[in-house]
């Protein structure tokens, strides 16, 4: 039988067909309900935050470092896009319509839902051992050799083995840990650092980042990192089989072929 890796208790190994022409398949559980529900809520929130964030950004596509910055000061960089404000010199002969009203409403509502869902996921992850069992690299994987083997496999575009469909490889584990424990906390922190009332109560939220405009610029860079993660995540899912993996994240079950012994 195939090596199952760190699969959570199999649902029941049902040999569906035994005719020799059709390979036998096995259904086993892969993702818990809480992981699946929070995954899709966060996916929805992330898209809402991304779209509304881009809309808000269009009203001032210039970035500064430090505490302050306006169209009268020199930006660190600016995006070569038109703006929704006539105040901003963009080089384009037109001004886009103002979408900041609904964008800001949607941005903060989605942020609330994402943060609350993320907290639920984090508490669940610590208490059930989800982080320890499914995301922390196993002892055998905590070596440069295992790490470089995984990278080499990815660079050769090797399709995941049956065993890998049941568990995460070391690169996936490290990437998910980075996204969950570094990028998401950073995007929330840099966002809160732009709230004037929040920083009035906790000034170090913004001073530690080097000022309000630094927080805004970092918020943009962390967004870019999260979008990069999303793109790679979706590409990898497509390589592994888009419908199969998506179905697994919805139903929680995975169907794998069984090798005959």
């Amino acid at each position, binding site marked *: 039988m195939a090596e199952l890796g760190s699969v959570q208790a199999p649902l029941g190994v049902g040999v569906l067909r035994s005719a020799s022409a059709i390979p036998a398949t096995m259904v086993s559980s892969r993702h818990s309900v809480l992981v699946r529900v929070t995954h899709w809520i966060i996916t929805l929130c992330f898209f809402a935050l991304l779209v509304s964030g881009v809309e808000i950004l269009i009203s001032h596509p210039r970035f500064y470092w430090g505490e302050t910055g306006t169209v009268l000061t020199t930006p660190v960089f600016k995006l070569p896009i038109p703006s929704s404000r006539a105040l901003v010199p963009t080089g384009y002969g037109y001004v886009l319509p103002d979408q*900041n009203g609904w964008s800001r409403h949607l941005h903060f509502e989605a942020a609330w839902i994402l943060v609350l869902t993320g907290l639920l996921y984090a508490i669940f992850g610590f208490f059930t051992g989800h982080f320890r069992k499914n995301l922390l690299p196993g002892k055998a994987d905590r070596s440069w050799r295992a790490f470089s083997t995984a990278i080499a496999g990815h660079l050769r575009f090797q399709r995941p083995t049956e065993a890998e469909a049941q568990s995460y490889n070391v690169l996936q584990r490290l990437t998910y840990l980075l996204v969950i424990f570094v990028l998401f906390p950073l995007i929330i922190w840099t966002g809160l650092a732009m709230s004037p*009332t929040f920083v009035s109560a906790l000034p170090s939220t913004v001073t530690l980042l080097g000022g*309000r405009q630094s927080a805004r610029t970092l918020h943009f860079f962390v967004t870019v990192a999260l979008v990069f993660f999303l793109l790679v995540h979706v590409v990898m899912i497509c390589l592994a089989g888009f419908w199969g993996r998506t179905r697994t994240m919805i139903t929680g079950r995975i169907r794998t072929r069984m090798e005959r012994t």
Partner: protein
Amino acid sequence: MTDLSRRKMIISGLAATAGVSGLGVAAHLAEKYGLVPPDHGGIYGLGETLTYASQRLLARQSLAREFPRSQISNRPLANQIAPPSEAFRRLQAGGFIDWRLSVDGMVDRPGSFSLAQLKTYPSRSQITEVACEEGWSYIAEWIGVPLSHVLNLVGVHPQARYVVYFSIEPDWWDSMDMADAMHPQTFLTYGMNGDELPVGNGGPLRMRVPRQLGYKSVKFITHLTVTDNLKRFGKGLGSAAPEAGYAWYAGI
């Protein structure tokens, strides 16, 4: 029906009743303690209410960050506004000598103040940042009289909940709760960086609410009304901002 299923039904009924009434009690308490913003309706009401309620619970008395003089921006941005109205230009031609601030509503002594009168009250200054919802920000020294001083002069009724403030420019008005109205950094501002407040930055009189985004700091203030109910103003959403799609509370 077996005992077990009857017990189950009773328990789930009780749980559902407790849940619904729990939400009802929470909503009632939130309303009673002023944690519900006037624009709480619609699909974005949840986010707005969570933000306003949590910031009122956790940061009612907090002070906006103040900066050293060395951090004052060299060029405070006077962002574009529509061309001034006829009424404004007439007062400007007279050097704003006839500019008046009228105060009415739930107060003991409604009145009207000239700029010269406002300047006789204890003057305060703060070096704080104006942060626009668009993303830009600058730091300036703002000089004026705390709004609380004027409110204490006219005698605000204890049941008052909001101060509504109006610009001389049509359809430009806003409101704040008493936590912000009595806040020591909320100023009726008439000076900037040691000088008169320039027209481009809201002169001769601008409301400064430094714990909220720039759009809450309405320019060219001529009128204040103290009230316990925002439903009577405009579309009842608390300010002109929600009527244009923006949030009433701009503390985020």
